[in-house]
């Protein structure tokens, strides 16, 4: 397609990129305000009333609990036995993760703060944590609520620091156990259980969280950063977990990180200096700009957008709304090449289907199983890399079949927890929200040959609806 996008296509494109999919109400609002003002509204989420979805989420009682309460009410089987508690499906630790998954999907479907939820999803994946690793079962709720969500549209540096000090990240990437080779704890003699350096977090904070794998660091930098972060640990991982700096574990000698000298005896400040160094490094600006452009524009975003976004990142001291605004304001954003250029990842696909059909949604295990079969188990990506954001990762034959089966089950109201209203037999209005004026002849022909809920199934399974 080379002709410029028409107005209704621009609005669909904009909503596809800044939300979990167009709805009639969102299209109306964006048309009324204009894309530019609608974006500004979305970039200030605290001003958008969101009572309806928060009421649904409020029904998930673990969402308000701290890690101690979660550990006490949803203990591991062994602790439960010791306390004489009966274990059952209602107090199993996996229920905590289940409620997190429910909340994530409910907010994707129902929140009015759509761009904010898109960013929460983006950062959760960028700073991925596997919720089923040990104590993370009880730490993830706070990680989502107190670490990611408050900073999702804030400053990158604050987000990086918040994750570095979050009990969940300290636990997941093992930094809480890392002991400086020259620390008092290590030098103490006669201790047979002497501990030492663990470089897991030091590597991932550079490779995955900030500089990127080509960001120009060496194995020596990994080692030095690991020494800087020694002593960044946590109290009570299985209880009221909280960040603490333990000077006995900290390596007090001088370090050199990415060519910068960090003098001896810096204590906890060594780690803060590393955060500042990484957050303000040009490679970080570029890496984050590239990932955001990949989310909002295309799998291989044009260099011009990456450059503008990286420059905005540097200029604004890593202000996330400024970078997002720069990407969407870029003249290339509405180029026809990028229209429907992204394949929806499973969360985007399922949420957009529930939104466009205006399905009455309670998140059930069946719904989440579908997401899992499509390859995106929420909060359960095991490697620190998180889930990929490119088409090739999400369209295998197995995933395609699962999407088709999901579409069939949703259209026929065979999914427990998602009720599609009856009037959805008429798919015409939906086409205007999916591919206004550009539905392929193959899809048109197929739609005309089916009837009833099968038509809806077909539309939701069609290639057009796999893209955004």
């Amino acid at each position, binding site marked *: 397609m080379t002709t410029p996008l028409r107005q209704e296509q621009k609005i669909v494109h904009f909503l596809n990129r800044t939300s979990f999919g167009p709805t009639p109400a969102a299209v109306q609002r964006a048309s009324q305000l204009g894309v530019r003002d609608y974006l500004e509204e979305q970039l200030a989420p605290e001003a958008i009333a969101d009572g309806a979805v928060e009421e649904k989420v409020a029904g998930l009682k673990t969402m308000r609990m701290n890690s101690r309460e979660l550990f006490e009410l949803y203990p591991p089987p062994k602790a439960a036995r010791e306390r004489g508690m009966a274990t059952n499906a209602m107090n199993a630790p996996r229920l905590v993760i289940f409620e997190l998954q429910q909340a994530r999907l409910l907010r994707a479907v129902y929140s009015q703060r759509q761009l904010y939820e898109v960013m929460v999803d983006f950062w959760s994946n960028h700073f991925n944590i596997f919720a089923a690793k040990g104590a993370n079962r009880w730490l993830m709720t706070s990680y989502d609520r107190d670490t990611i969500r408050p900073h999702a549209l804030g400053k990158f540096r604050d987000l990086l620091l918040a994750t570095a000090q979050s009990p969940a990240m300290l636990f997941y990437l*093992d930094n809480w*156990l*890392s*002991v400086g080779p020259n620390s008092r704890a*290590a030098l103490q003699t006669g201790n047979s259980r*002497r*501990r*030492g*350096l*663990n*470089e*897991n977090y030091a*590597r991932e904070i550079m*490779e995955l969280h900030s500089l990127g*794998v*080509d960001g*120009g*660091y*060496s*194995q020596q930098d*990994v080692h030095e950063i690991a020494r800087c972060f020694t002593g960044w640990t946590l109290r009570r991982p299985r209880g009221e977990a909280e960040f603490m700096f333990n000077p006995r574990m900290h390596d007090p000698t001088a370090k050199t990180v990415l060519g910068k000298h960090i003098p001896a005896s810096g204590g906890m400040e060594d780690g803060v200096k590393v955060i500042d160094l990484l957050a303000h490094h040009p490679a970080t600006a570029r890496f984050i700009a590239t990932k955001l452009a990949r989310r909002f524009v295309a799998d291989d975003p044009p260099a011009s957008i990456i450059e503008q976004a990286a420059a905005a990142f540097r200029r604004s001291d890593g202000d996330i709304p400024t970078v997002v605004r720069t990407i969407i304001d870029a003249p290339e954003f509405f180029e026809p090449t990028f229209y429907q250029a992204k394949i929806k990842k499973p969360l985007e696909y399922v949420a957009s289907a529930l939104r466009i059909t205006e399905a009455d949604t309670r998140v059930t295990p069946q719904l989440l199983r579908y997401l899992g*079969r*499509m*390859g995106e188990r929420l909060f359960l990506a*095991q*490697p*620190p*890399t998180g889930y990929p954001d490119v*088409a*090739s*990762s*999400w*369209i*295998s*034959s*197995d*995933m*395609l*079949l699962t999407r*088709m*089966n999901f579409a*069939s*089950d949703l259209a*026929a109201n*065979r999914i427990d927890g998602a009720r599609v209203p009856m009037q959805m037999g008429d798919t015409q209005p939906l086409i205007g929200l999916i591919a206004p004026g550009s539905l*392929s*002849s*193959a*899809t048109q*022909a*197929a739609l005309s*040959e*089916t009837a009833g809920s*099968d038509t809806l*199934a*077909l539309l939701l*399974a*069609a*290639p057009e609806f*796999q893209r955004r």
Partner: protein
Amino acid sequence: MDRSRRTFIKSAGVGFLALGLPPPFLVRAAAQQSSRSKVLVVIFQRGGMDGLNVVIPFKDPAYYALRPSIAVAEPAAGEEGAIDLDGFYALHPALSPLKKIYDQGQLAIVHAAGSPDNTRSHFDAQDCMELGTPGIRSTPDGWLNRFLTQRERGDSPFRGLAVTPQTPRILAGAAPTLSLSTIEEFRPRNLTVAPALQKLYANAADPLFRRGGQTLFEAMARLRSIEAKIPPSTASYPAGRFPAGLKQIARLIKADVGLEIAFTEIEGWDTHVAEGGATGQLANRLKELGEALVAFHQDVGDRMEDVVIVTLSEFGRTARENGNRGTDHGHANVMFVIGGHVRGGRVYGRWPGLAPELLYEGRDLDLTTDYRAVCGEVIARHMGQRDLGQVFPGFRSPVGQLGII
């Protein structure tokens, strides 16, 4: 980092022999059209397996000093000890079921093997290994797909199969490949919509969907036509996603659906903390791996004549244990090659040694066998694809023939 990586690869390749190829009469009847196709099963152990605690060099004087709390005891230690293979190497006790296959001569082990790339990033190292061009990350396709592309034979939708939800990098590329989780669930839920969807996808302008849809519907049709004839499995696989995936592969091998390449993966090898020795975290992963492999071996039975299994993991781990009774990202690793025609029952590869001055970059097991030498030999001698120029472009084996197969 990139520059040093490239330089290393370049220098390692210069002046060595090309990968030795067998005389034609030894290339088994792979080229003949037969429903009993040769099969290569690749298992990826994601996370970086600690090869030094899997096949233990118990006679290397440095091993026990490097690993005071996680070393696996010598075979002489009895129950908790490793299982002696040849007086120098020993198998982790959790892999005891594999010893029988080793003794039958169907399990070959290659130590100090892996990718020459020096990256210690999980995803970078996995990409490298899957693309088959260490040091060059712009390669668009995976080496298993290049094998399928180059050897155009048969049009079975099952030629290249991943038992993973996503298509892995190693299978991405021009040749159509299939992914499925289970044979039973690989069917449409709505039989009236399915034909319309098949037609819609067949006519889709978007090649991603046209091709994906074609493979999907052909495979479903083929499966339904032979499903009833697949012999039931008598082997008992352990619980878990990985064993379940291997079982699917075994069934498809027995069903003669034209499978040539099968891929699956097993996670959980990133043992930075509390790795354990004879028992513990790593031992638990090995138990699942070993029991699943033995079940597969038994399940496939006589057809192991046509099957070779190769295991890969992105890198090994530090020779020295870290400060948390675990190990960090390292370099060379250990590979398993299992099959009816494998010259097993021995450990291949030159042992580089674990003394401080012998360690790679002062910390890791050095690499003496490029994984492409192992995989290339399997592709050439088992799969019958003698020209490896497309599969592993630019690769010349520094070690020549290994003679594993």
